[in-house]
């Protein structure tokens, strides 16, 4: 009977009894994602409310009535009348208002005569909320101008077409689709890939190097279990840990959905297409990646003299893992995601496939190349890790 299931079961039992594993590999990814997405949701809501409830100081309030009475301004701003520009500027500096608007001339007259309707807006140029409020205010002015323009044209028996004969029609060249869940598509693939590695890294020092230090590896080697069985048993347990850690991040997102966090509707908007098929594609893509990570970590651990050395090597390798994972963040801003070569770049390819699945735009070529590349690399890492177990000079390197 093969010793693989015995070794696998024993390794898992040890993992489950290790607080580091429970905290770093199982619970931490879940809570990190939960807290991050909750924070992002709340922050989005805060920004949205901030722009909706902007308070502005108005000088010469009577002059601005046509604009201030418009529904757009009434909905977007709270108005505070101030007696002087200086007071308005002070309020802007103290951040009690977003903008100070000075209606230097009477807008009613200006609209009637078509002259002298300049409005001064005093703003803190370093403030982003102020910039957002300015955008909303400009839009209100634009709408008032447009409404006034229509009246003028009507009084002269003209229509908008008479003064704007040219127009641009947008025609969808592809099937109209709802946009994907931008926040999920941008962040979750990145986390899933990173957690797959870092979840396993927690035990990289322990799994073989730790056994060398404690002398238990010799006990294992002197048993009838073959080296291949030992290597594969350890690899499978490590792969399970990597896989669990990656899925733990996904559970964090599910928890965000279940527990009714603010803005979750916005967060999951466009994610309705995610069904069993899409989840299946993601799992199939994840399996060779975790196999590759597990084999890398076991090989490192087998090569190292002790746990500390193994952790040092694993930390160095983690940089190589992070670079393509971070690159996946920027792929969304380009059209590289659909290019075949992406499928050949390890780690980046998996994150890209995840993004495509979230956006409902899975590219078959990229998916096939990703699976092939990850599987070939996983097999190579596996072969290397098993080879480490066959070499006396490595196993007894203490």
């Amino acid at each position, binding site marked *: *009977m093969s010793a693989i299931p*015995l070794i696998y079961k024993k390794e898992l*039992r040890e993992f489950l009894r*290790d607080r580091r594993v429970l905290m770093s590999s199982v619970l931490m990814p879940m809570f990190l994602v939960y807290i991050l997405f909750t924070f992002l949701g709340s922050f989005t809501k805060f920004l949205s409310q901030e722009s909706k409830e902007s308070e502005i100081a108005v000088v010469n309030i009577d002059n601005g009535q046509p604009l201030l009475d418009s529904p757009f301004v009434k909905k977007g701003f709270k108005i505070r009348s101030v007696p002087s520009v200086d007071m308005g500027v002070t309020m802007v500096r103290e951040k009690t208002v977003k903008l100070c608007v000075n209606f230097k001339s009477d807008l009613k007259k200006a609209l009637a005569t078509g002259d002298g309707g300049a409005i001064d807006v005093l703003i803190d140029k370093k403030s982003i909320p102020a910039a957002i409020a300015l955008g909303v205010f400009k839009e209100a002015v634009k709408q008032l101008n447009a409404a006034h323009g229509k009246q003028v044209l009507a009084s002269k028996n003209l229509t908008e077409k008479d003064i704007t004969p040219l127009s641009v029609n947008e025609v969808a060249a592809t099937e109209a689709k709802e946009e994907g869940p931008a926040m999920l598509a941008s962040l979750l693939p990145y986390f899933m890939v990173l957690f797959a590695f870092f979840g396993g890294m927690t035990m990289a020092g322990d799994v073989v190097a730790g056994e060398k230090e*404690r*002398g*238990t590896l010799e006990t294992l080697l*002197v048993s009838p279990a*073959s080296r291949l069985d030992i290597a594969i048993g350890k690899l499978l347990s490590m792969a399970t840990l990597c896989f669990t850690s990656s899925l733990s991040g996904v559970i964090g997102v599910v928890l965000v959905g279940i527990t009714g966090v603010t803005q979750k509707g916005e967060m999951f908007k466009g994610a309705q297409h995610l069904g069993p098929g899409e989840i299946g594609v993601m799992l199939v893509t994840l399996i060779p990646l975790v196999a590759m990570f597990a084999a890398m970590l076991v090989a490192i651990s087998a090569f190292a003299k002790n746990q500390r050395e193994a952790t040092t090597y694993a930390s160095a390798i983690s940089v190589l893992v992070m670079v393509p994972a971070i690159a996946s963040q920027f792929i969304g801003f380009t059209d590289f995601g659909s290019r075949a070569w992406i499928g050949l770049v390890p780690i980046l390819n998996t994150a890209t496939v995840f993004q495509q699945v979230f956006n409902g735009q899975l590219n078959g070529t990229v998916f096939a190349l990703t699976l092939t590349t990850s599987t070939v690399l996983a097999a190579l890492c596996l072969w290397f890790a098993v080879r480490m177990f066959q070499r006396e000079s490595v196993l007894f390197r203490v």
Partner: protein
Amino acid sequence: MRVDFPPMVSCQGLVKSFTDKKRGDVHAVDGVSFECRPGEIFGVLGVNGAGKTTLLRLLATIIEPNGGTATVGGYDIRTQAQEVRRNIGFLSTTTALYGRLNPREMIRYLGSLYGLTGQDLTARTEAAIAKLGITDFADRLCDRLSSGQKQRVSIARTIVHDPPVMFFDEPTTGLDVITSRTIIEFIEECRTQGKTVLFSTHIMSEAERLCDRIAVIHDGKLAAIGTLDELRNQTGQSHLERIFLALIGELTAA
């Protein structure tokens, strides 16, 4: 000493060399030959670095020899490594326990690796637990055991599959008197049970007390082999420590 049984451990011209960055080519075991039989405690005596551990690791098939042949329990260490491993128990200086398993799980795990299953595995595990007096702490994690308790668990895991050949690699080094006594008594019991025991040590008093025959190993080479009386006659010394020094001195002078 029983000489009527065929040898359970036999090696002829065993060689193990490796290259070390600092020391260059090292002959850790250099043409070692001996035999030992059931019911015999065969001592391997040498200073640190003499090649004792390498010799035991070769016989346990953990590492492969560069030359020579050996059989353990009638199985060739090169071609029947798995069968060799099935027939040996190996106890070294370290207790080699998994800290996050309890003694019962530890013993069961090792037993299952040796092919024990079902009721047989349970019965052997419980027998080993009872025999070594582990019952009171059988369900406590190994990390929380005292040194003496750990050593008892370590012995239990080496005997759960009831091997006919036992290898002890400096098993008492660094242990207190009481724990050492447990191991010494266990080694004597192995002899009583008719097991073949290979006992590597650098502690003269233990070798003098336990060993039926002693092989003195120095720089990987076999300096002498025989009963204590034979070694006395060969060196003209009465105490093992002086015998040992004389043998090493002879070898160095040669």
